[in-house]
């Protein structure tokens, strides 16, 4: 926020504007930056996903558009989606049908506000940062149910119901495993969480103690379920529900769901790397070569991309769970496990330090 304000001060007579106006400009500029970032990121991730899947499957993936290894494929795809006819089913609930993709996208967009790309590269370092993320990502459920209901299609309804049940369930173990980090840090602010892990790989919460080590895996698995990735992609299960809650969507509205999916992938990967992998801090301790020399946002993005690659890797190698098995994993495995981990971390916090 501060750095954006500094940057904006090069505008002539910027200092003489009223404070309200200055704030407005800063907010507008941040939104545009985040929006542009999400759009570019989603395009890049779609391209990456296609390439990763292709190479796992002995294919080449996109090779033609743009020349070098089909780098412009995502741009062409998004142009196609933009130009497509916007179809709203005659029997659909038009208002809800139009609102649903916006809500899903806003939920993904809002999470970016507190993602700490660097010590100063954060839109807003809220003092309740991680709580805010848990809250706004939960908002996506509303959009998914809306989409499922408003489409007036049975497959969409099933998808919406599955999505709601799944996301709400998995938020609980995910939030509890986040607590294992919050207890030792003592703050909900994303920047505080990262600064608590400064000083090299041994300070990351992943390797701090066995409880946070396990909590990382609990969080990662739950986050897969939250963003509907295989093996938890029941809401859009292609072979069962055809496309799930976005079956009736086309063109730009579908693109919003698509954009939100990839933005969410990044969000959960970014949260995992903030909480457990030291955020923007370098894995190398002290001022070793490559340590502080690589800019924080680059380190952060690399960590997040690594986790995204793991998500893609899982997606293209695992089959899908069944709905009851999914709930079994959540309530009978993940939830008790995360509660035990919180107990363990609490024990350490009280009796060890």
């Amino acid at each position, binding site marked *: 926020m501060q750095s954006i304000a500094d940057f904006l001060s090069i505008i002539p007579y910027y200092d003489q504007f009223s404070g309200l106006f200055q704030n407005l400009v800063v907010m507008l500029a941040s939104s545009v930056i985040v929006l542009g970032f999400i759009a570019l990121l989603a395009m890049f991730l779609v391209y990456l996903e296609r390439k990763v899947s292709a190479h796992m499957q002995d294919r080449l993936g996109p090779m033609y558009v743009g020349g070098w290894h089909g780098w412009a494929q995502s741009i062409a795809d998004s142009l196609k989606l933009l130009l497509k006819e916007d179809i709203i089913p005659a029997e659909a609930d038009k208002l809800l049908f139009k609102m649903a993709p916006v809500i899903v996208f806003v939920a993904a967009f809002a999470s970016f506000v507190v993602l700490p790309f660097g010590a100063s590269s954060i839109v807003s370092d809220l003092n309740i940062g991680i709580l805010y993320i848990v809250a706004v990502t939960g908002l996506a459920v509303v959009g998914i149910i809306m989409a499922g209901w408003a489409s007036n299609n049975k497959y969409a309804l099933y998808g919406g119901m599955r999505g709601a049940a799944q996301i709400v369930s998995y938020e609980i173990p995910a939030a509890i495993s986040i607590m294992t980090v919050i207890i030792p840090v003592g703050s909900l602010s994303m920047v505080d969480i990262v600064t608590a892990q400064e000083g090299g790989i041994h300070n990351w919460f992943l390797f701090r103690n066995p409880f946070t080590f396990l909590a990382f895996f609990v969080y990662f698995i739950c986050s897969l379920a939250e963003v509907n990735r295989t093996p938890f992609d029941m809401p859009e299960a292609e072979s069962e529900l055809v496309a799930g809650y976005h079956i009736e969507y086309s063109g730009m509205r579908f693109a919003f769901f698509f954009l939100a999916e990839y933005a969410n992938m990044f969000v959960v990967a970014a949260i995992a790397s903030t909480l457990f992998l030291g955020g923007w801090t370098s894995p190398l301790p002290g001022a070793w070569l490559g340590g502080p020399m690589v800019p924080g946002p680059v380190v952060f993005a690399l960590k997040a991309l690594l986790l995204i690659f793991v998500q893609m890797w899982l997606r293209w190698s695992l*089959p*899908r769970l069944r709905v009851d098995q999914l709930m079994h994993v959540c309530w009978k495995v993940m939830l008790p496990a995360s509660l035990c981990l919180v107990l363990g971390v609490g024990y350490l916090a009280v009796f060890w330090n």
Partner: protein
Amino acid sequence: MEVDYSGEMMTLQMGPQHPSTHGVLRLELKTDGEVVHEAIPHIGYLHRCFEKHAENVDYPGVVPFADRMDYVAAMNNELGYVLAVEKLMGIEVNERVRRLRVIMAELNRIASHLLAAGTYGLDMGSFTPFLHCFRDRERILDLFEETCGARLLYNYNWIGGLMFDVLPGFEKKVIDFVDYFEPLVADLNRLLSYNYIFVKRTANVGILSPEAAISYGVTGPNLRGSGVAFDVRKDEPYLGYEEYDFDVPVGRGEFGPVGSCFDRYIVRIREVLESCKIIRQAVAKLPPGDVQEAVPKRVKPAAGEVYMRTECPRGEMGYYIVSDGGTKPYRVKVKSPCFTAMSAFREISRGAMIADIVAIVGSLDIVLGEIDR
């Protein structure tokens, strides 16, 4: 929308256009939430009057129509028909034709089972095995293309012989393929068959008991998946299958009751390896000879009737042909393995979940072209 709040069923029409119905099959699901109380299959969307067509073309002209029934195992389909007509006319083909027919049928069986396993992975939400299977299937189709010019619908088996002899070097290519392919089955098993989630999804689903399987007349891998070791190649050999050394894999119920979706699936994977064994033996003793030696000038069987059954990849395919002494068959009736498998579907899918319905349909490995004919 038929959502009833009193706890009654919702009818969900799955198909005829649906990614997991393996063709144009319509399933009428009576669902209560995710649980399916009844799944009623509706068939007939791909009916092309094969049997009526067969009455209006001469005997050799039926072969291309036979190809189009089970279009992923056309070589086996036409083989059954050709053998039936040869039996009716009393034609004896030479050893080379017999061996080549066995090689082609077994290669086609591998291709068909690969497609079944790959699409089953797809049904379970796993995309990568599908493309790995298709990559290997492609090599078989290349061999077929080289031999008879077609990749899917071959018209290769003629009454009394074969359309062409194989090109020089074919034997080596087949053995090369088998050498390349056999180790990859272990890969597929690691990636899909013994994957924990895959086993959990299939091992306790769609149980078809041996008694039920026999009473429904289910044949092929579906029957063997239920633990009944019946294979026409073993029990009623044709084309000299009695000379080959191969096993009949049956479902052993490793992860749950015998006759589950997993058993039906794993039987196919094991059969692929048995087919490789047969191919090796057939190629090793491939004698020289003229493949069109016994092709009759005019196919005009004497009045009579014949029933010939062969083991197709999907089960026992029977051809019942009635001849009135003319150049066209008086009647051709086909006993389709997928049709009988589909008849058991309603029973084994009762009380399953929506995702299980997909698992059951996939494990029966139906081809709608053959059910509807």
